[in-house]
């Protein structure tokens, strides 16, 4: 598992650097290629390795962490988006940011309820 952690860090750094450089230069292709290559390397390693990469405890921790993160995050972006839109007369430059955050909150909730329906059906209702 330690090897996978190191590999994951290297891949993240590689993708981050290439994506940042391509964004600075205003080109898309290197960023997309870096993401695809990183995903492929990670997938190939997972398939070939005999290490135990995750077990039920790690999955449980990950799921609980996701739930907490989603809850706090959705509340935060909804409130911040709302405040920025409310201040549209005083700070018109940030109105677009407010709408982006509000749409992100709506998108997040929609996605959440789609998956909730899917897992509700999967686990027996």
């Amino acid at each position: 598992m330690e090897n996978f952690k190191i590999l994951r860090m290297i891949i993240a750094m590689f993708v981050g650097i290439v994506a940042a450089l391509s964004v600075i230069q205003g080109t898309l292709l290197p960023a997309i290629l870096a993401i695809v290559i990183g995903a492929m390397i990670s997938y190939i390693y997972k398939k070939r390795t005999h290490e135990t990469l995750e077990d039920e405890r790690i999955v449980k921790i990950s799921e609980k962490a996701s739930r907490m993160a989603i809850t706090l995050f959705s509340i935060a972006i909804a409130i911040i988006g709302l405040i920025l839109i409310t201040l549209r007369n005083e700070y018109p430059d940030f109105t677009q940011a407010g709408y982006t955050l509000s749409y992100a909150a709506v998108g997040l909730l929609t996605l959440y309820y789609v998956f909730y329906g899917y897992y509700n059906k999967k686990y027996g209702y």
Partner: protein
Amino acid sequence: MNNKLKVYRAMSDITQEELAKELGVTRQTIIAIEKEKYDPSLALAFKIAKFFKVEIEDIFIYQED
């Protein structure tokens, strides 16, 4: 995981609703366990076995993959 929850429930002549209330879960969870779509946690499995006064292995049948 296979289980005989429906059999034990029928033997005890208790509805899903009543069993759910006794165990502190929703009726949908009892349905899901009986349909073998959901595996209960260890705590809930022990509760179920204790309710029917049997061992866990009598109700839940573990199968190796």
